[in-house]
């Protein structure tokens, strides 16, 4: 290893580590300067987490959030060139730190997904009329084999709390715990409408069907998931409603 590489490894370790600056490598004059860099590093990275997870911060309170942010940065020191990526896995950090309050990690997941959707690639959603034209001559086999391409930022997860209420409550003021728990677990999906990241809650079977098709499954496979979750006489209508909603939400980019 070159002497420059050795110095850089020492300096990075002094900045991102939990402990105070190790004095063995650095002179007293250098330690004073190193303290400035260490403060810059902490300030910039914690501020980046604040900017991305403002609602999570309001939910748990400033001091608690800052402790969680420092813990996250020690456990996951940044490695990407973009400060915007510092929040990667912060919801996992929250899940570990707030095990009795799962709404914290659910809200952190939502904020991260919205953050990522904001700068996702620009794509044009498939219009309902275009979809209708493309599938007008479909027989049942073609419907079964139908595969869809979705907007690239689309993401989903199971949630236990009412994220719609939580999102609104944490928009400006600190929310009081506990926050409304859903009567049954649901899923949330996040995507972007035009330039605006949005989300909605949906039944787990719909999210399962959606995730299956995002992974390459056919519409027939998705209908099987719906059939397993809904009464037989309602499944066909539910599958049709589901597909229609995906189209009107702008989740579908193309067929195939």
């Amino acid at each position, binding site marked *: 290893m*070159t*002497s*420059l*590489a050795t*110095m*850089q*490894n020492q*300096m*990075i370790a002094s*900045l*991102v580590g939990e402990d105070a600056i190790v004095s063995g490598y650095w*002179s007293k*004059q*250098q330690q*004073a*300067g*190193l303290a*400035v*860099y260490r403060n*810059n*590093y902490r300030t*910039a*990275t914690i501020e*980046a987490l604040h900017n991305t997870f403002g609602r999570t911060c309001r939910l748990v309170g400033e001091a608690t959030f800052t402790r969680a942010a420092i813990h996250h940065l020690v456990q996951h*020191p*940044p*490695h*990407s*060139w*973009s*400060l915007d990526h*510092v929040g990667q896995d912060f919801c996992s950090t929250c899940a570990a730190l707030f095990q009795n309050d799962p709404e914290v990690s659910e809200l952190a997941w939502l904020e991260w997904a919205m953050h990522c959707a*904001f*700068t*996702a*690639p*620009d*794509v044009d959603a498939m219009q309902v009329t275009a979809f209708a034209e493309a599938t007008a001559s479909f027989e049942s086999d073609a419907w079964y084999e139908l595969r869809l391409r979705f907007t690239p930022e689309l993401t989903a997860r199971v949630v236990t709390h009412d994220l719609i209420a939580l999102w609104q409550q944490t928009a400006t003021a600190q929310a009081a715990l506990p926050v409304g728990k859903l009567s049954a677990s649901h899923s949330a999906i996040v995507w*972007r409408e035009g*330039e605006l990241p949005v989300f909605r809650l949906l039944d787990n079977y719909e999210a399962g069907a959606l995730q299956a098709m995002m992974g390459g499954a056919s519409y027939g496979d998705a209908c099987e998931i719906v059939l397993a979750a809904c009464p037989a006489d309602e499944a066909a209508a539910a599958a049709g409603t589901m597909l229609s909603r995906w189209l009107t939400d702008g989740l579908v980019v193309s067929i195939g």
Partner: protein
Amino acid sequence: MSKPITFPGYGLGLRSPHYQNFLEHQVPVDFVEVISENFMIEGGKPLRILEQVRQKHEVSLHGVSMSVGSAQGLDQGYLARLRTLVTRIEPLWVSDHLCWTRTTAHNSHDLLPLPLTMEALEIVCANIHHAQEYLGRAMLFENPSSYLSFPEDEMTEARFLKEMVSRTGCYLLLDVNNLCVNAHNHNFDPLEYLEQLPLSRVREIHLAGHTPGDIRIDTHDRPVCGEVWALYEKVVNRVDGVGTLLERDDAIPPLPELLAELDCARDCARKVKQETAA
């Protein structure tokens, strides 16, 4: 490889509180500068805004994460994103800093100082060669502010920059505030520094505010101080065809306040040139 053009204009750093001003009005600046990394993204509103501003103004791309001083070389993924942005925006200049920000394992998200040694010079020059060849254009590199120095230094920063320019064909972005900060922090004469610098390679000047103290900190959170203005006068008297940019990254005031400060730079340069001509 294309060379950076001379563009003796006056510009502002484009920051989000002023996006609407730039989109809705004709702001009296000759160019704007953006932090490259903020727009090295795949899509969405920020890129749309930058493209709209680009239709009205020249744009300079100023990076903070290239890390030309990294002993382990450059991040190829980073370079690919930057090249995409360069193609998209067709900027006046592409610049970054003489510093390092990362090892292969971690990123500090700060502009960290290099020891001024031959070893560091060779690594920096190899990285700059690689970046310029990949981007197909000569870049500008900025003298960074710094808060510590290394006993193993073998040359002054100005000498290091001169050698770097000579070996790579790159150009310079002279940050007058950083020069002022470093002259205090490392106890040297900024005019001697200017004497050693190849000023003919300077294409852009940065002006900003800093926080005073035993160690001066380059905070970009306040107006340019008198000491920096005095140094700016000395610099503009020694250069030609150079753009001047005012940076503010924290405690960002309303746009008219920054435009008034930019006018001070115009007036200062005009006065110096008139006095020199007389």
